């Protein structure tokens, strides 16, 4: 899975990071930070492998 331009997106209510905006295989996506979500699982895997970095939220 090719993941590019990853950036955290803040929850407007809690102020915490709640999702990740990125481009996956050329498709613009907003990925919830939920352990059951397939794309989030892959993001974590690539983060752990050091092959992906995520920009901080605005």
């Amino acid at each position, binding site marked *: 899975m090719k993941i590019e331009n990853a950036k955290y997106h803040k929850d407007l209510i809690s102020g915490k990071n709640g999702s990740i905006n990125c481009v996956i*295989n050329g498709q613009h*996506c*907003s990925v*919830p930070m939920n352990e*059951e*979500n*397939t*794309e*989030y699982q892959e993001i974590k895997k690539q983060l752990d492998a050091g092959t992906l970095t995520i920009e901080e939220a605005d």
Partner: protein
Amino acid sequence: MTQTKVEAPFVEGGGGSSFKNLVINGGQKIAQRATAATAVSNGSYQTVDRWKLYNVSDGAYTTAQTALSLTDQATTDGQTHALDIQCTTADGSVGAGQYAFIYHLVEAQNCQHLKFGTSSAVDLTLQFYVKSNLTGTTCGFIAKEDSTYCQAPFEFTINSANTWEKKVVTIPANAVIQASSSIINNDNGAGIGIGFNLLLGGNFDNGTNLTWETGGASYATTNVLNFLSSTDNDFFITGLQLEVGNDASDFEHLPIDVELQRCRRYLQRVEASGTDYGSFGSGANANTASSLTQHLFSPPMRTVPTLHTTGTAANYSVFNGSTGLDACASIPAINGNGGTNSQIRLEFIAASGALTAGQSTEMLGSDGVAAYLMFHAEL
């Protein structure tokens, strides 16, 4: 008046005569993402629902949903659509580690009646219609995804070029699939997969026909065609039915609403009209730039989904009575981590200062744009 109680007939197999087919959208009728030819990215879903596409080779291919002619419908047991694969870049020299295949994943909790991991593990029978310009014997495979990974390749022969042919294969249970390590956990993860090889390197063609084996080397026997050997090549498939037992029963034609609803557990696409400002819902402005709305999923999805958009902020707009219409400055996003498989909170983002905090807002697709929100919870 006398009434007679009629008992329903006992039907062996996958839980009765209804929903005996483990394959969802086996008739390729549903294509929520796209119907036209779309280039394949490795590990992605791009056209017909429930088909995951892999390509790690020097070749390339597109997939599309194609409608069958009345003549073809008559020769395919009434199938109306097929998955259409066209080679667009040839790879005539396949590396040992290269592969390309199409793959249908069945959710684990729909596989419990297969009783894998026990001495009662069942035999499986797969039927499908196939058509290609290439002829010869080639391979697909069934894979068990959960716990210990196993595969069973199945050979089939395309006898005549460019002709729809029906194929039936039965994969018997064996000691590998009966072993306790082959259990499929009863959850919403992947249970089994059905694959059709388009190109396969020597690292993966070490299987024995119709035989379950562990490891990752048995996706085929050595009888495997290279459908990406020439840009003249094509491969069409439809009418897939995988069922319990040793016989292929009649294909289960489901009503379109039922088939779509089954697909929507894994993908839900909401489209604006494309000709006017279509609505994605209403909500309230959280501040002077962001509007929040709730989106409900029907049916509940497999997991909390990922949101896909067009990727162009101006394709989306927000409207309220006092500030009027504003094109979005950023593409819509999931807001917060409180979403579930039945609801999620979305944020539409206008330019800073464009909105009035606290007012109600409608979220829209922009005028004349085929904007969409697509929620993806595929395996």
